[in-house]
């Protein structure tokens, strides 16, 4: 029987090595896999590259992971938020590397990684400092910049419902980066609000089919709070 469910956060985090690239889903607090991020803090891997839309808030979650010195580099579109002081302090001190990526380019680069596209052209960022040093090409009279795929060794994803094959649904705007990161992660770990029986999910309504998922942990924490 295929059973991707794991019983403990330790199993969910097993094998994440030092130096791994970890994709972290969510947009603000919505759809953010908080239990898995805490699990990663507990697990101990360091020298990580984190790919997430934001660079952490307050002193919890991603900010805590950074504060513990476990993040070598962060790839994100929006490093600043209401309280991103941990990131900013580390960054000013030269203790963390930053790659700013336009949000859509970031999503597309991960989708490309999941779809077997190692590089693609895009009009986003042409002529700006985020395209500096990158190859450009004129195609049909418009200039484009070449962007490469952004795969993860691990993707941490939050779902609303999951079954033992790893089929996922999401809740409202909690979908955001999660399905894209699930595609791009070599090992995709999911925390889900609801575990359902195989066959309970309408096959027309599955957003992330189980082929993109490796481990499923049941974390019925309720509603997101704060941003």
């Amino acid at each position, binding site marked *: 029987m295929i059973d991707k469910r794991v019983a403990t956060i330790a199993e969910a985090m097993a094998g994440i090595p030092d130096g791994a690239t970890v994709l972290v889903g969510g947009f603000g607090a919505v*759809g953010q896999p908080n239990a898995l991020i805490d699990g990663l803090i507990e697990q101990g891997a360091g020298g990580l590259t984190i790919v997430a839309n934001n660079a952490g808030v307050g002193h919890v979650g991603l900010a805590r992971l950074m504060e513990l010195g476990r993040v070598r580099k962060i790839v994100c579109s929006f490093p600043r938020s209401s309280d991103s002081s941990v990131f900013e302090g580390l960054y000013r001190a030269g203790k963390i590397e930053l790659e700013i990526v336009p*949000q*859509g380019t970031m999503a597309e680069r991960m989708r490309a990684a999941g779809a077997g596209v190692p590089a693609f052209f895009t009009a986003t960022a042409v002529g700006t400092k985020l395209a500096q040093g990158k190859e450009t090409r004129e195609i049909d009279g418009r200039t484009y910049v070449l962007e490469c795929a952004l795969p993860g060794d691990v993707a941490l994803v939050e779902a609303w419902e999951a079954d033992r094959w790893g089929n996922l649904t999401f809740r*409202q*705007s909690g979908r955001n980066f999660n399905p894209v990161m699930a595609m791009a992660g070599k090992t995709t770990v999911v925390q889900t609000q609801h575990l359902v029986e195989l066959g309970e999910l309408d096959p027309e309504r599955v957003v992330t089919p189980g082929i993109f998922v490796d481990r499923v942990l049941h974390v019925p924490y309720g*509603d997101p709070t704060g941003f």
Partner: protein
Amino acid sequence: MTDTVATMTPLSRTQMAQRLAHDIPEGWYVNLGIGMPTQVADCVPAGREVIFHSENGVLGMGPAPAKDAVEPWMINAGKQYVTLVKGGAYVHHADSFAMIRGGHLDLCVLGAFEVAENGDIANWATSENDTAPAVGGAMDLAAGAKRLWVMMDHTTKDGRPKLVKRCSYPLTALGAVRRVYTNLAVLDVTPNGFAVVEMCPGLSFAELQARTEAELHKAG
């Protein structure tokens, strides 16, 4: 340049939003940037169907919910609570940005630090020395939408012009802006530079020019 002209009152933010909303035809798909542009959604004339998009995978965004009806899973790109209208749909981030980058949005409205007479826009980093600026979806929106309109005050708080010959701040996109709605005027970006479409009542062309670095033209 910051002296107030006796007979002229600049538009309030709400008036700017109303003025801009007036120009959005029924049926357009529109993304409103974080900050000032967000208010445009509330100003679309009653009965006119305009469909609002939010980068985080919401198409058909509705107004903010009543305080006791907040849905904690339902935010917009500015991380404010919103609602979904009838006919709305959820998509993931790559599909959401496919709408933006694939040229499917009829309009994007962004705020800006500067707009140049060639349509360049600078709205994401306040200086070349800003080492960790937050770009979000601004570059995708500016490069991807069918039209980019900018909504901003005509000058900075200390009176420096924001409609310039060439942007001095780091660029968001080249030649992308089509139209600018300020608290003083509506201006089209044309091959000849800024063309004044409309001015705040009581403001003269010369007074507007005095508050603008780029040379202004009268709209044909």
